[in-house]
């Protein structure tokens, strides 16, 4: 949700800065449908999850990996657009740490408690899925490349308490740069 809010705030800021929503129509985005397919796959995986992570051999993990591979194709095809390099770096960061830790994004029990989302897990056992997300509970000591996992905690009273990763920051910055550049561009003559 926090990433959707970042995209919508970017649109709002561009409008305040004199940009136009109509300029988005001029963005030469190729194969944008790939993002919609990847998103659709993940909606299924996230809202019909396996309760405990079964590792890289799980068909659901394979499907999640396919959704990320689709996104890499999308970024490669649109690499010339401003901000896409940042999005690609963010995807790589998130996908790497997920692959290293059994296919899902690790989050520590402490981070879940700080943000008040402990009700979203059946247990705090290592490998338990966090409902409504791509996360699994994993203690810091058991997490490979911990610094790429969900470590940035924005606790309440922020209206959307959340925990996000370095990769999420890069993806948000890339999307914001693309929207700002596109909406504030001069219309082609």
């Amino acid at each position, binding site marked *: *949700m926090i990433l959707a809010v970042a995209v919508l705030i970017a649109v709002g800021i561009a409008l305040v800065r004199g940009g136009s929503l109509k300029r988005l129509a001029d963005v030469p985005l190729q194969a944008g449908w790939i993002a919609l397919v990847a998103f659709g796959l993940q909606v299924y995986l996230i809202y019909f999850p396996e309760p405990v992570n079964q590792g890289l051999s799980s068909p659901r993990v394979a499907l999640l990996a396919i959704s990320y591979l689709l996104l890499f194709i999308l970024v490669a095809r649109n690499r010339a657009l401003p901000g896409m390099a940042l999005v690609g770096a963010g995807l790589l960061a998130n996908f790497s740490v997920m692959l290293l830790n059994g296919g899902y994004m690790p989050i520590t029990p402490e981070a879940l408690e700080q943000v008040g989302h402990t009700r979203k897990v059946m247990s705090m056992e290592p490998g338990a899925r966090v409902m409504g997300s791509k996360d699994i509970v994993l203690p810091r000591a058991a997490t490979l490349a911990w610094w790429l996992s969900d470590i940035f905690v924005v606790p309440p009273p922020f209206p959307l308490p959340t925990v996000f990763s370095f990769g999420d920051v890069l993806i948000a910055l890339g999307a914001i740069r693309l929207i700002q550049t596109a909406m504030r561009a001069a219309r082609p003559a």
Partner: protein
Amino acid sequence: MKNWNLLTTNPTWVRVIYVLLALLAMALAGGAPDGFGGFSG
């Protein structure tokens, strides 16, 4: 309803909606915070 029809039959606005939805889907599918599309993060 009339406004919606105007919006969906105008190619510029259809393209705007398509680009915005694709960017939103890319950010949501690529990112991995502890909330996906719900309202709890």
